[in-house]
């Protein structure tokens, strides 16, 4: 066990984590360089494209150190985004040390800090690596100072490297061997294996990535998943080299995989503990959480015939992604689809992209929304994912909405603009620190609902892309929210109702009904579009009655000409939905689903 080192790499997006991992694989001859693909560990195209890691692929490397001994280095790659912070924390829990990669030109960014703190929390040995020192804009001294002052790590032992140029790689490997402690744990104690990820394989079922903390696991053993309380017989155990290769057993301190004929991924959740079914451990390893989705959106196939394919595709993704939840939903404009729950915006984007690319389904994703907690007058609490889940206002005692603590790193010049944006989005100021004279760390508590709309895009454009952000969920807080209903010709239309803060209700109601006024064609009668809170109408617009009519000549008895024109006209309206007596075009629903913030 003394020659095992379990470590991970944490870094902000783009700071070179994957490139560094590739170099380590090369230097340890784990992968021959001619087989080397750029960024080997990011197996999904999407990951390589976005430069982020979504799925964790652990690799076992053998390294002959300068002290003459051979070491087994297990690299556990981590997802680099806050949406997956639970997975990050599980991966960190499987390691004893971490490489903290910081870009020599860009310095400490929001995620660097968040992940470094997570590593500190897990008690890991952290080795700072200043990457990209070959870049013309590199300011290693400055970055070293930031590591010391901002993160609070000893920077004297930081390694200067350029993964791209192969500079400092040996130093990194030596540091892993010398500074990261070997795993502790007892191979003869009762089995405790931490699942830090599970993937679904079409042929083999669920493959769990595990870190053995205590005991041993081998083929034929009866095991118990402690959180889900399921028992299975082990079919195969092994290591990643980086492809899977079977082994006789895994023992305490080692990292590998377990295949046990598990059919569904939710039965082998990240964070769960595997133990022996016959002589189980007293208690599971700490830290297991059932993660709850916080962001929701509707997914609808553009071609309605694709609905069964979409269901199949989402089910397949769910096999691999236990945090993805979905339920069927129907929309007036979009037909049948699903309401899906995600860990965050990135998780949502990636899921939608994967459905488009891997399953080739054209789909519409509606604007995301959050889950609200509603305390009813009788004291019970319900969860509402969409406006139609809201009960009658009279029955509501209190509404709570999810908040995030948002950390923004940005050049000092843009602080004013960023603060203004946060205030506009109902942010509550927490703190402001000058990291250097030019760089500022700004912290706000912000309703998640305000963040998911287009906060990041706005911030990026306000700061010309110089701001980096990170956030953590800080739970639900009471909020002065109202549900605004939209009535067309007296009929409330669920698809148009929305939740917002009381102070914004009028402004948003106005922009919604103005937009609807543009999109709803003139009818044979005047149509009133109203927005109301409960029974109180707060805004109103009228669509004037139709006047346009064309009386054309009848061409030589050609009645088909008129018929064809009418058919064409009707075709355009076929896509309309009757609401009471009013024809509402699909675009109205679409416009509303996609961007209700404009105008």
């Amino acid at each position, binding site marked *: 066990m003394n020659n095992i080192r379990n470590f991970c790499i944490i870094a902000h997006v783009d700071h070179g984590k994957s490139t560094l991992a590739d170099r380590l694989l090369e230097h340890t001859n784990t992968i021959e360089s001619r087989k080397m693909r750029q960024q080997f560990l990011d197996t999904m195209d999407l990951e390589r494209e976005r430069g982020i890691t979504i799925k964790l692929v652990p690799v076992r490397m053998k390294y002959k150190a300068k002290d003459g001994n051979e070491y087994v280095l297990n690299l556990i790659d981590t997802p680099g985004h806050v949406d997956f912070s639970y997975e990050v924390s599980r991966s960190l829990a499987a390691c004893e040390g971490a490489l903290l990669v910081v870009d020599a030109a860009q310095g400490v960014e929001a995620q660097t800090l968040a992940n470094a703190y997570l590593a500190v929390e897990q008690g890991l040995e952290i080795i700072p690596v200043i990457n990209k020192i070959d870049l013309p804009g590199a300011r290693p001294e400055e970055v070293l100072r930031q590591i010391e002052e901002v993160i609070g790590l000893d920077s004297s032992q930081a390694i200067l490297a350029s993964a791209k140029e192969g500079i400092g790689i040996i130093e990194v490997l030596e540091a892993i061997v010398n500074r990261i402690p070997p795993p502790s744990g007892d191979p003869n104690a009762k089995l405790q294996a931490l699942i830090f990820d599970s993937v679904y394989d079409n042929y083999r079922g669920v493959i769990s990535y595990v870190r053995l903390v205590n005991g041993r696991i081998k083929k034929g053993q009866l095991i118990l998943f402690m959180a889900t309380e399921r028992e299975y017989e082990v079919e195969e155990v092994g290591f990643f080299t980086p492809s899977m290769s079977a082994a006789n057993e895994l023992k305490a301190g080692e990292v590998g995989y377990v295949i046990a004929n598990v059919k569904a991924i939710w039965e082998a959740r990240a964070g769960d503990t595997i133990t022996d079914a016959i002589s189980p451990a007293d208690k599971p390893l700490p830290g297991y959480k059932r993660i709850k989705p916080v962001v929701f959106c509707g997914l609808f196939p553009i071609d309605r015939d694709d609905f069964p394919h979409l269901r199949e595709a989402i089910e397949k993704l769910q096999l691999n992604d236990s945090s993805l939840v979905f339920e069927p939903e129907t929309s007036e404009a979009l037909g049948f689809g699903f309401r899906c729950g995600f860990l965050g915006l990135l998780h949502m984007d990636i899921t939608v992209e994967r459905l488009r690319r891997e399953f080739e389904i054209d789909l519409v994703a509606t604007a995301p929304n959050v889950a609200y907690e509603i305390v009813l007058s009788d004291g019970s609490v319900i969860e509402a994912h969409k406006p139609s889940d809201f009960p009658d206002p009279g029955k509501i005692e209190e509404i709570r909405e999810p908040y995030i603590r948002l950390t923004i790193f940005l050049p000092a010049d843009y602080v004013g603009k960023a603060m203004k944006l946060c205030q506009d989005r109902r942010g509550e100021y927490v703190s402001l620190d000058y990291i250097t004279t030019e760089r500022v760390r700004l912290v706000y508590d912000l309703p998640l609902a305000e963040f998911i709309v287009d906060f990041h895009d706005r911030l990026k454009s306000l700061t010309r892309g110089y701001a980096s952000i990170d956030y953590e969920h800080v739970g639900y807080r009471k909020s002065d929210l109202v549900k605004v209903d939209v009535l067309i010709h007296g009929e409330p239309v669920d698809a148009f109702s929305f939740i917002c803060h009381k102070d914004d209700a009028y402004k948003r109601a106005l922009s919604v009904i103005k937009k609807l006024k543009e999109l709803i064609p003139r009818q044979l009668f005047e149509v009133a579009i109203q927005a109301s809170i409960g029974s109180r109408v707060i805004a109103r617009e009228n669509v004037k009655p*139709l006047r346009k009519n064309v*009386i054309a000549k009848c061409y030589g008895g050609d009645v088909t000409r008129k*018929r064809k024109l009418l058919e064409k006209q009707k075709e355009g309206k076929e896509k309309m939905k009757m609401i009471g007596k009013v024809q509402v075009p699909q675009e109205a629903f679409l416009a509303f689903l996609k961007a209700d913030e404009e105008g």
Partner: protein
Amino acid sequence: MRKDNLNYSVMPLSESFSWALSCPVSLYVHIPFCVQKCPYCAFYSVVPKTGDIESYLNLLDNELKMWTSLTGGKIHAQTLYIGGGTPTVLSSKHWEQLILTLERYVNFLPLLEASVEANPGTLSLGHIKLWRSWRITRASLGVQSLDDAELSWLKRPHGAYEAADAIAALVASGLDTSVDLMFGFPGQTIRSWHRTIKDCLKFGIRHLSIYELTLEENTPWGENPPEGLTEGYPLYRFAQWYLPKRGFIQYEIASFSLPRHWCRHNIAYWQGGNFLGIGPSAWGYLNGYRYGNASDIKLYADSISRGEFPIVYEEILPNEKAAAESAMLALRTMWGVSARAFRRKWGWQAYKKFLQVWHLLPEDCKKTIQGKHAFSAKGFRVANSLWEQFL
């Protein structure tokens, strides 16, 4: 359903034709010539070169001959409509030739209504004399406007005075005179529109057709729409208010007339009557079979000279669609849909379907009087939207 050529000798419907054609029909004759193309007009016409008209009249003769050979006898016409194009582009001599052709193949019934379209500028006293001496009872004059500025904007080949002269001459000859007016073009105001209608009425016309300027595909303006088109709705509404005060009844969506001076030929279109159309781009309808001739004089000539009908479009609508279409057409007229007649022709199911839609229409757009369902004045104004419901 499209066919480029259709050999009449093997036409499967010839049986049903011969029966339809042994009964009285309405006959439409298309004259595909104009002195110039108006930029908004989608009717088929060409500017004739020397000899074109003579050879065309020969082709017409042949087409009619083909139809009569289907029935083995003359065609019985209860109404005749010679339209275009511009029938007045034909000289008196041409007209004589046309009349000879018609007399050869057509048996004109007593109480015949025979209309001819005329245009100021090409209409001559010779035309009027000839028509009066033959069977013509009615003339429809393409005036469009009595305002010189408006006429020049419409690129009409005549001015207001010529139009006024033509109206006066037709009325004086004793022909039942109708005037076509157009609305909805730039610069037109409710005042100029009122003046044009009032001036037309002064001459003693008994029938008026009003059309909104429509930008049709395959016309110069359809491709490059002119700017600043006036909203037609108020002008149409004004006509609906003004003409009844002067004794005119709106008997059809675009037609106003003194009582009983309606155009029976056009009514046949709306009421599902059988009509035979001859000439390029003419349409016919015989007991449920509808056909359209080629809209190209060359194609037309080729077919006729091969002894084939120049039909390029044909359809027989299934009962449900045919019923809906017949309701839409009937609703163009003030007589509307007669519950009894409709049930008899299309059956209970179709009538029930009609009623389902009818009940959805707004109350102020419709009226039902003595078993007849018709549009109100407001209904006529928004008819396009109402018809849509029946499709």
